[in-house]
Every structure is written in C-alpha cells, then in structure tokens.
C-alpha cells in the first residue's frame, strides 16, 4: 500500500478495485485447474476413485467458485458506486 497524504483515500479505492479485477481474471484459471484435479486421481482397476467422491468434490468446488465470484462481483460494484469520483478507467492489462 502506498501511504501518501491527500489522495490516499482514492488511491486505496483504485488499488482495491484493480486487485478485485485481477481476482476476477484469475478465477477462471483457478476453476479450470481445480476441475482438472480429479484426472490425477486413480482411474484404473481396483484403486479407481468412486463416482460419488469425484461428484462431491466437483460440486464443492463449483459451489465455492460461485460464492467467490459473487463476492468479487459485489466488491467491484460497491467500489464503483462508492468511488463515483474515481475517474481511473478500467484498463485491460495491468
């Protein structure tokens, strides 16, 4: 965090908003990795994982992704409405 006098408040808002946008960008990659994890689990013969275990894992990940995505969306919106005087455009590319 930068600690400058004066525009400290705005800086923080801008900073937080940018980081939330970063989080929104990372989330699909995290999801893709988590959804591929079961591929590493045993598939062949006797040590095969059961469908129910994979199913429970997938739905758990799914639920967490939905919740995190909801949190990020809300934060992005909050920042936008509160920081109406924050003129910094949302650039694509950090």
């Amino acid at each position: 965090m930068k600690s400058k006098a004066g525009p400290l408040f705005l800086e923080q808002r801008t900073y937080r908003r940018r980081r939330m946008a970063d989080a929104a960008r990372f989330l699909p990659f995290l999801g893709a990795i988590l959804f591929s994890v079961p591929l590493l689990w045993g598939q062949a013969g006797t040590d095969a994982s059961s469908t129910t275990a994979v199913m429970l894992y997938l739905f758990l990940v799914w639920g967490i992704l939905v919740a995190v995505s909801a949190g990020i969306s809300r934060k992005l919106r909050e920042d936008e409405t509160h920081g109406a005087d924050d003129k910094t455009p949302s650039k694509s590319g950090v």
Partner: protein
Amino acid sequence: MAPLNVLVLVCLTYVAFLFAVAFAADHAARRGRGTWLRSPIIYTLSLSIYCTAWTFYGAVGFAARSGLEFVTIYLGPTLVMIGWWWTLRKMVRVGRSQRVTSIADLISSRYGKSNTLAVCVTLLAVIGTTPYIALQLQSVTLSFATFAASDPTSADLPDQQSTALWVALGLTLFTILFGTRNLDANERHHGVVIAIALEAVVKLFALLAVGVFVVWGLAGGISETIARIDASPIMHWEVSGGRWIGLTMLSAAAFLCLPRMFQVMVVENENEDDLRTAAWAFPGYLMLMSLFVVPIAAIGLQTMPAGVNPDLFVLTLPLQEGRDGLAILSFIGGFSSATSMVIVAAIALSTMVSNHVVMPVWLWSKGGTAAMSGDVRHVALLARRLSIGGIVLLGYLYFRLSGGGESLAAIGLVSFAGVAQFLPALMGGLFWRAANRTGAISGLGVGFVVWMYCMFLPSFGTSSILPQHIFDHGLFGLSWLRPHALFGADGMDPLVHAVMWSMLLNTAVFIGVSLLTFPRPVERLQGAQFVNVFRHSSTATGWSGDLARSEDLMIMSQRIIGSRQAQALFSGAARRQGLAGYLPEPTPDFLLELERELSGSVGTATAHAMISQIVGGATVSVEDLLAVADETAQIMEYSSRLEAKTQEQARTARQLRAANQKLTQLSVQKDSFLSQISHELRTPMTSIRAFSEILRDTGGLSPEEQAKYSTIIHDEAVRLTRLLDDLLDLSVLENGQVVLNTQTGRLSDLLDRTIAAAAGGEVDSLEIRRNRDKEDVVLTTDLDRLAQVFINLIANARKYCDAEKPSLSISSKQDGSELKIDFVDNGSGIATDQQAVIFEKFARIGDTKAGGAGLGLAICREIMARLGGDVTYLPGQSGGAFRVTLPVSVVSSPLGETL
C-alpha cells in the same frame, strides 16, 4: 396412469399462459412500465436457454452412458461466466457500441463490414443449428409418446410426426408474434425474454422436483443415494483426460459462439452491469441443474428394466412409480427447455439470414441502388418472418429425415463443434488487432470443411455421401484422409479427434493468413475499435460526406426505419447543427449516427453499403488512422488537425456560400418585386385611366358600352385593392399587431370549408385525398387565419402542380407535442435550391405564369408563427409537400356529442 387428455390440457394451458405473459410483458414495456423486466435476474434466467431439452433429458442419458462426463458440458460455461472480466464484458461492450444484431454481424463488422464473411457465418450457423432444433422437436415427441404409451385409456398412439409438426407450427407462431414486432433487432424482445425466463424457472423447478423425489422418495435419503450410486454401473470414475478437457473446452467455446447464446447475452442485453450478477448466478443455476443428474441416472439404471431409453429417465421414473403429477411437471419442464431454445435460435438465425442473405440479394435484384428500392421495412420484416418459418421447417425436415434415432447427446455435440468454429475469428477479432478478413474467411472455411468431413457427415453413419470404404481407407484411397484418423492420428476418440483437428487447423490458418496478408484500412480501423473498446468507446468514423446528399439519405432512411423516425432523426440532427428544417449537413458524425441507426434494422454490412452508395464511398480519415498507427502520431496529428480545419473551413464556406446565395436571391427578388409591383400597379392604373378618359371624353356611348367600361374600371380597382390588402396584411402580421380571434371547431369541417373556398365554385381539376378519421380533432385557435393558410396551400397546389392528373393528399397526425397536417401533391415539387426562399416575401418560383405577387407563403408563415406553430417545406416526398404544425395545446379533448 395419467390420462393423455390431462397432459394435453395442461400443456395447452401452459402454452396459453406463456402467450399471455409474453403479451403482458411486451405491453408493459411499450408503455414504459415494468423496469423489473430489465432486472439482472431476468437476464441471468434468459441465459438459461443454454440448458435445452438436451440438458433436461439428455444429461441423465449422458450420465447413464458415461458417468460424470456429462458435467463437462456445464463446467465450460461456468468457467466462461466466472471469467466474464476477460471476454464477455468486452463482447457485450462491443456489441452495444457497434449496435450489433447477431454473431454474424459482429464478425462481419469487425472484419471491415464484409458481407461475404457474414454469409459464411450465417450458413455455418444454420447448418450447425438445424440438427439442434430437430433434437428439440424429437425430445418433445419422444416424451409425448412415452406418456401415450403408459396411458392404457388411449387406444392408439398419436402419430409422432404430427406431434412434431404441431409443436413446430406453434413455435413458429410464437416467435413471429413476439420476435418480429419491431424491425430494430437491437431492441429487446421483452415478451420473448420474459417467457424464456419463466421457462427457465419451470425447467429448474421440474428437474429439482424429480431429483428430490428420486433421492428422498425412491432411495430414502442422501447416504442411501450415495450407496446406490456406488453400487450402480456408473460407480467408477472412468473418464479419459482428453475427453474431459476437450469437452469442457468445446462447451466453453460453444457457449460463446452459439447464435442463440449471443442473442440473449449480447443483443438482448440492456445493461452491462447485469453481467456482474450473471457471473455468479448463472454458474449457480448450472450447478443446480446438474445436481441430481447422477442420482437420477444411477437409480434409473437400477430400477428401470433394461432397454429403456436412459434419455427419458426423468420422465419414466415418476411414471413407473405412479407419480402422475410429477411426471406431468417433468414433461412441462422438458417442453419448456425445448421450446425456449427453438424460439431464441429462430430469432437469432432469422436476423442473420434476413440481414445478410435475403436483404442484400433483394437490394441487388432491385438494381442495387438503395435510394430507389421502395419500402425496405416491409421487405425486411417479411424476410425475417419467412426466415423464422424456414428455419423451424428445416429443423422439422431434419427430424423427419433423420428418423430421430440418435441419442440426444450425440447430436448436441456435433452442433457444438460446428458453431465453435467461430471462436478463432471471434476471439482474434476481440483481442488481436492484426487479425484480418482474409484470415478469418480462410480459417472459418478450413474449420468448416474439417468439421463437415470428420464429424457432421459421419454422424449420419455410413451413407451414400460417406460410404464405408472412406471410413476404412480414406478419401481417394489416401489413408491419411480417414474421417476418424486424420493425418494418421489413429485410435483417438472420434469427437476429440474432430474437435482437435478442426479447431487446430482453423486457428492455424486464421493466424497464418492474417500474418501474411494485409488488411484494408476499414478493417484496421474496426480492429482498433474492437480491441481497444474500453479505451475509446466513442468510435471515430469513416465517412466524409462533402456533398449535399442529405435529401437522398432521407429518402432512403424513410424507407428503412419509417418516415416518422427518419424525420425525427434528421430534424434532430439539423437542430443540433443549428439549422432549421429537416436536412442536416452530412457531417461525419451525422453519417455515423445514421449508419448505426440503420444497422439496427438491416445489419452493419448492408447499412454501410447503402450509405456508401449515396455518399460515395467511405474514406478513412486521418483522425481514424491515428488510432491505428501510433508510430507516426506526431506528423499525423498535425496533418489531421490541418485536415479537420480544412473540413471545418469547407463546411463554413459552404454555409457562407449558402447564406450569400440566399442574400443575392433576396436582392434579386426585391428588385424584381419592385419592377413587378410597379408593373402590377401600372397595368390596372393604365386601364383605369384609359377607360375613364373614354367615358369622360367620348360622347354617345351606348349604355352597354358604358357598363362594360365601368366594369373594367371596377375590376381593376378591386385588383389593386387586393394587392394593397395583402401588403397591409403582411406588414400587420410582421409587426405583431394582429389580434387573434380564437374559435373552436373541428379540423375536418375547417378543411371542408377551405377546400370549397379554394375551388372558388369552379369544377376542380385537382383531386383531393383525405383521411377523415384522422381529422376528427377539435381545434381551439384562430380558425379564420388557419383557413387562410390552408386555402393558400391548396390554391398553390392547384396553380403549380404540373402533374397530368394533379392530386393533393392532406393527412394529419398527432405526434408527441405537435399536430402535423401535411399537404403533399404529385407534381415535381420544389427544387432544393429554391426551398430556402419560398417563404420569403415576394418569392416566386420561375416565371410569373400564375400571377400573384409572391406574398402568399410569406403571409402563411407569419400567421402560423402567430398561432404558435409553423409551416415548412417537407423534402423527400413524392412532390411538393408542405407541413403545417400546430402545438398540441390547441387540440381540445376528443369530441363529445356536443358539437
């Protein structure tokens, strides 16, 4: 068992309810109520057309055949949605700023507004979607047949074909009714959106209800369900990594590229902010839809007799257990999934077909000139309606021909892989500025061919098109051309094989050709605007209209967006430019606005082509190129400023020239008026003097001769008086000394009176057409003065209309805050350069063949100004046209019986 009749009754009631809801939503939206219609929740629910009957029935079938693999179809879209910050946000922004009407329109617009590309995309979309529509029809008929078979009271099974036909007809009707109400495809179809949102709720509720019944009703709880799954044929986690990742990617790609998804996600989007909600709510919806799929599949496999189609477990499980209510709910859920998909797909495809195929062909067949092509609006609407019928019919034919044999999941994946071919062009267009048209066309073409050969044609099995020996030995006996082992990639899963090769070759060719070829300036410009949409959303323009082509543009626009809207658009632009009347300067800004407006109706490529026909080709201005080429920014900026200044100066010079011309004309008019007035005064004076001298000096005149001469003197004196009266009248009006004599009367009576007065008792050669219904308004104003204006306009038409059979049509309409009364004759009208001066004093067009001092219209204008209205010349009509406007405040409440 549920009697079939109950099912049919419930189904029809449901359909009637949907119609009612759609109608009510449309109604509310048009009256400006119902802001909840645009809520993010409705947007999220409308996205659920991703879940078609393929999800509702097919997911369980998919799970029964290959376990958890089904879930990849929903993981892909989940990843796209939670990654909305990357792609969807950009797609929606581009779609809104460019007024895009379909995915074909977006791609064509990005690559230099190329119609060739739009046609390619449209064709591929139609080929890819037809099987999918067939699939929906099949699912409805299959589920209906299942019900019929389980009902002992129904003696004979209903014919499957006829069920499908009825469903297809009903869907076509619904889509045409609510999907083509407005020509502007940019406008939201509120009725349709609200109906599919409702269907989204119904299908989710139905699937959850069946799931709850299976888990707690049949299995007896969660732990028991888990135990039953562990004992079922799908107990093992056996998924190949290739299929798992490949299917997830495929479904993610299809989610972005499916025409119907694009329609609800981008075209129907009203507020970019809705995406924030959809980003988590839609993955949640998908999760709930998939939640009970595996339990239903596992328990279905255990309890149902072998050989029962697993695609229909959702329906047959409740039926077998005697839960008729639940079975009917489940049927309605499946029905909802199928119908909402067909409706939106038909709207999306019909927009593409009519904008990119029918309209260009039609315009071309009309000689290729946009200005001369008659009323385009009706043609466009008709084209869209016919396309809807045609697309649903195609789906029905596919269903008839294919016999409905394949399992649901197989057709769905073929369709997905087909539309996924748009992905490289779409993503390249959004993120890579150097992507160009040639690359996009080549990539799409290659991907399409590979998909056809490796996936679409083999999906029919061995047939006359693709006989067995091609499967075994390849095309032309070349073993590396086997459809399931291209380039020797043997032993792969056919689906992964086809998706991999088609996408790989598509992308490689797209990138390679883009790197090697050079884009046209328009492509570079559009590329910069698409890729940097967040940096400069306000787009620069390619138009430079330097000729006074406004009237031609107006004629064309009236035919596309309707005369009222076009006149409003043009007069609004003219007002912003500080000009009076209806014709603005064709500035680049105005032309861009007009192109956007038109593209909402006929698509980007067509709108661009039509305007360039009139204005004469788009040029890329230096300002635009600045956005493309940063490297020479300094020099360019300087010359761009010069160019802007030059253009500005040219415009100012043009305006000055116009003003100067007007002044010169006025001066000439004044001179000619002076000579005219002295002539007008002298002629009667001369005859008065001559005849009075005769009367005085000549003796022995007969009484007849005396009477004759004094009549001449009297007539000439009357003529003089009239001329002086007119002059006096005008000066009184101009000085504002006139006292208005306010009366109340009906417009139609006033017109009757004025038409009779203007005819002057003669048999009139001028035919007058009116619409008396519209004239039934009561005015409270100075009716005598208003009549004077009307008489003048009618008399002018009689005097100057040079048609062989002169006719004048008088029409009135109330529009917002104004009452407009148009007088349009069928003559040759008034030349553009004369339009500016006809309202000036002493102005007369051409020779003085019809007499009069040229004061009539000047008096009219002064009168209308006093009455709070105006009289203007209306350009771009069939002949001379004048519009009288009155403030709506003079219109009294509708007539009672009192008058």
